[in-house]
C-alpha cells in the first residue's frame, strides 16, 4: 500500500507523521517528496548509497535552420519562448521540458539539451529504505524531481510519501497514484481553511483519505465540526506538547522517545487499512 501524507497548510506535522509512521512499521519505504525543502532524512539518518541527477530537456535553437516562423512560441503553454525580430528567445527557468516546441518545429531547428535541476538520493536505515529528492536552489520545477523519486516505488513494501504543503502541481504529483492520503491539520482557522482546499484536491483525485489533527488541544472546534459534517474520519489526534516539540527539534522520533506512540502509529496504520476499504 502507498500512503501519502499531505496537508494544505505548511508546518502542521506532515514530516512528524510520515517519519513516525515509517519507523513504527516493518518493511517500509519512506519517500520524501517535499523536494523544495526535504527534511525526513534529519530524523531517519540513513546511510546514502546512491545519488542520481535529475534533468529536464531544454530547447536549443539552431539559428541556421530557424526562419523565425514562431510556431514554437505559439505552442509553448508555459510562456517560455518569445520571438523578437524573427529570433527565438528561450527562458529556461520557465520551461517545463514538455518537448512541444521541438515536436512542432516545422524546420527541425530545435534540439533538446539536458539541464540539471535536482538530485535523488537513496539510502537505508534498518527496516527502512529511504529516498528523497532535492530541487537545486533557483530551480522552479519540482514535479520532475518528485516523479524521479516516485520511480523508485517498490510495491512489495509499505510506501510512505511525505508530500509538499499546498494544493498545487507538486502536491498533486506527489499524491497521485497513492492508495490513501493522510491530511495533517491543526485546529486553527488557517489550518481549517487549507484543509478544506486539500480535501477538494484529494476528492477530485478520488483517493481515500482521513485527517490527523495535530496540536489537537489548541485552537477551536471548527475542524472537528468540518470533519463530522463532511463525513471525514479523524484517524488520530496528537496533543500540543512541549516534549514533542523538543524531540522534534533534536531530530529524534516521537515513537522512540515517548512511550505508547509506536502503538499509536501502528493503530493508525490499522485504521487506514479499514478506512481505505470502506471508502474504496
Amino acid at each position, binding site marked *: 500500500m502507498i500512503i501519502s501524507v499531505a496537508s494544505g497548510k505548511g508546518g502542521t506535522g506532515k514530516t512528524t507523521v510520515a517519519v513516525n509512521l515509517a519507523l513504527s512499521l516493518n518493511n517500509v519505504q519512506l519517500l520524501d517528496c517535499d523536494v523544495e525543502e526535504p527534511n525526513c532524512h534529519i530524523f531517519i539518518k540513513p546511510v546514502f548509497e546512491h545519488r542520481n541527477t535529475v534533468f529536464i530537456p531544454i530547447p536549443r535553437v539552431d539559428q541556421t535552420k530557424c526562419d523565425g516562423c514562431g510556431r514554437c*512560441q505559439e505552442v509553448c503553454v*508555459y*510562456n*517560455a*519562448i*518569445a*520571438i*523578437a*525580430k524573427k*529570433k527565438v*528567445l528561450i*527562458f529556461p527557468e*520557465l520551461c517545463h521540458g514538455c518537448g512541444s516546441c521541438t515536436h512542432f518545429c516545422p524546420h527541425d531547428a530545435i534540439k533538446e539539451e539536458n539541464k540539471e535541476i535536482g538530485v535523488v538520493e537513496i539510502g537505508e536505515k534498518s527496516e527502512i529504505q529511504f529516498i528523497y529528492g532535492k530541487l537545486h536552489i533557483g530551480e522552479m520545477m519540482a514535479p520532475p524531481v518528485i516523479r524521479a523519486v516516485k520511480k523508485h516505488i517498490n510495491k512489495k513494501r509499505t510506501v510512505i510519501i511525505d508530500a509538499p504543503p499546498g494544493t498545487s502541481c507538486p502536491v498533486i504529483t506527489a499524491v497521485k497514484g497513492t492508495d490513501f492520503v493522510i491530511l495533517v491539520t491543526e485546529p486553527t482557522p488557517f489550518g481549517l481553511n487549507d484543509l478544506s482546499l486539500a480535501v477538494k484536491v484529494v476528492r477530485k483525485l478520488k483517493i481515500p483519505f482521513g485527517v490527523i489533527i495535530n496540536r489537537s488541544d489548541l485552537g477551536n472546534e471548527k475542524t472537528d465540526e468540518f470533519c463530522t459534517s463532511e463525513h471525514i474520519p479523524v484517524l488520530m489526534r496528537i496533543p500540543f506538547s512541549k516534549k514533542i516539540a523538543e524531540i522534534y527539534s533534536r531530530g529524534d522520533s516521537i515513537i522512540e522517545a515517548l512511550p505508547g506512540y509506536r502503538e499509536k502509529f501502528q493503530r493508525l496504520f490499522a485504521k487506514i487499512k479499514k478506512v481505505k476499504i470502506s471508502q474504496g
Partner: protein
Amino acid sequence: MKVAISSSGTTVESEVDLRFGRCPYYIIYDTEAESFEHVENKSGQAMGGAGIQAAQMVSDMNVESLITGNIGPNAFRVLSAASIKIYSGATGKIKDAVEKFKKGEYKQVNGPDVAPHFGMGRK
C-alpha cells in the same frame, strides 16, 4: 511612431499601470496621427511568463517605444531584442504621461529596474 503605455483602463483618462507584464490594457498612441487606441493584455493573468508574452504582444504591434512604471528582466530581454525603447518611472494619467514623454521628461532605461514577479504583488 507608435508608443505603448501600460494602463489600468481603456482611455487616456486612465492611470498608468506600474506593472508592465500584468497590466490589464495597453494604450497605443500614434504620434503622427495623434490618435489613441487600446488593446487588452491577454497574458496579464498568465500563471507564469506574463512579462515575456506581454513583451511579445507589444513587439508584434510594431511599437517603437514603451512607457511604463517598472520593467522586469524577462520582459526587458524580449523588448530589447525587438529594439523597442523603454521609458520607465511613469505615473498618473495616460494623457499626462504622453505629454511628459513628448517633452522628453522620461529617461530611456538600459536595464530592468525590478526583479521577476514584481507585478504579482508580493516579494
